[in-house]
């Protein structure tokens, strides 16, 4: 049950997290612009949690209903975002960091 108190608590978390995000990465070297963007993008796939909860549906009469099918599509999209996002970020960072180790002597 959502009350005014829990809503205000959620808004508090929201506002503080935005400030935290601004403080967290005030200075980023350009080499990391792309990996930071794609890594942060993978984290925004956290919506996968919502998609999982709503995909919990039963095939009792053959069709679980529109709402569940939409959640199913959301789950696929969020999983692609998460798995693909972390993997390409890793791929880029290995390239950047790997080169650094070899070239840095």
């Amino acid at each position, binding site marked *: 049950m959502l009350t005014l108190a829990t809503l205000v608590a959620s808004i508090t978390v929201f506002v503080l997290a935005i400030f935290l995000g601004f403080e967290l990465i005030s200075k980023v070297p350009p080499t990391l612009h792309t990996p930071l963007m794609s890594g942060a*993008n993978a984290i925004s796939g*956290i*919506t996968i949690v*919502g998609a999982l909860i709503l*995909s919990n549906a039963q095939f009792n009469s053959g069709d679980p209903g529109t709402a*569940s099918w939409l959640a199913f599509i959301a789950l696929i999209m969020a999983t692609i975002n998460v798995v693909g996002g972390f*993997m390409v970020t890793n791929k880029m960072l290995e390239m950047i960091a790997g080169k650094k180790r070899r070239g840095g002597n």
Partner: protein
Amino acid sequence: MVDPVIWDIGYLVSAAMFILGIKRLSSPRTAPQGNRLGAYGMLLAVLVTLVKMYTEGIIGYELIISGLAIGTLIGYVMATRVEMTEMPELVALFNGFGGGASALVGLSEVLKRLQNSNVPDPGVELYATWVAIGLSGIIGWATLTGSLMAMGKLRGGFYIPFTKKDDRGRRKWVNFPTWGPPWMNFVKGAVLLACISLIGLTVQNPHNYDYIYSLVILSCILGVLFVIPIGGADMPVVVSLLNSMSGIAAAFTGFVIGNNVLIIAGSMVGAAGLILTFIMCKAMNRTLMAVLFMSFGGGGRESVTRTKIGSDPVEIAMVCDGITKCVIVPGYGMAVSQAQHAVKEFADLMEAQGVEISYGIHPVAGRMPGHMNVLLAEASVPYEQLIEMDDINSELPETDVALVIGANDTINPVARSGEGPLGGMPIIDVDKARVVVIIKRSLSVGYAGVDNDLFFEDKTMMLFGDGKKMMNELNSAIKEF
């Protein structure tokens, strides 16, 4: 029965991992670790959710398991197959999926509640939930369609399926349109206003499906209208802004399902994306509003009346002989012709002769933030040789040869005059070098539509042609020299 508070503690740990992950992603030494930390945080959040659902009673596994399996498979294949040159498109596509997923979760939630007659009575719960669903919908759908548009623009165009193949086995290619008459801003404003009014209407009439579906359609249109007037060179700003929006959409979805980890992770990504957006805007000396709402360049293209005789690779090879310092300045042209490996080969040849090589990277060179750095890293260019704009500018007066590959606006000295479309934009001062070699297809103007006086200066040598082809010819000329 497990105390439900345990799940919130699990989510809290996962949120902390995201915070540390993003923090570590912003420093080169810790970035790989930061990315892994984020991935483990995500895995933890998924596991906590699954166990929580299990203890509370899962009524059907089919959609959950197949959804996770299909998504993992597609994500894995796309991430493994991608070439570094296709990275901007892939990042835009994943971003769109993130936004779309948030929007779909909101839509699914509202339909489920209507289906189960679980609509709250007018009060805080109804208002907060419905407004959150509406906002995650607007932002999420607009992020999805906007990212798909951005992806099209990053590719430059697409092949029309089912058309006749030409003799090289290719189908008909169409360039992705950039179109934005001044009245478009009013249309955008009207559509946005309509979306917001529709949220108000759904709060008053929660049972009306028409309002919900209209909101979905209008938000999708909003995303298209938002990106279509913005040209290719402004894409770094758009891509990072869409990244920020996908985070905000996830945060609003957190309000919908009442989950703090979504709110924390989403709003942090939103803030991080916004910072990147402002870094990009600053590098172009334009405000975010100007990028989004004022059409730029494109119009009044000056026709070039002056001419300049092109040099040939052998001449350049002679100039490069016996020098001590060379600065390479890449632009979007290097990405298009995929010349990064040829550039690296040139650098190796020069280094073998004892020449000091560094690369001057303009923050908005290319089509996404950090585009040049990723491409050059792929070609095994050492990280230490990639120099930021401000630092390379102090080195350029002592530079013998500045080699520019497919860049124009980012090296145009007219920007220093403070006038015209480029006025005040920070540039790489290649004109301070003793000799400037520019590899470019023609003398035509860049994205900003401004003539570049540097092309016509005596110390400038133009090498006309495709970036990769010219670099290869230059390399063989140096080897023979």
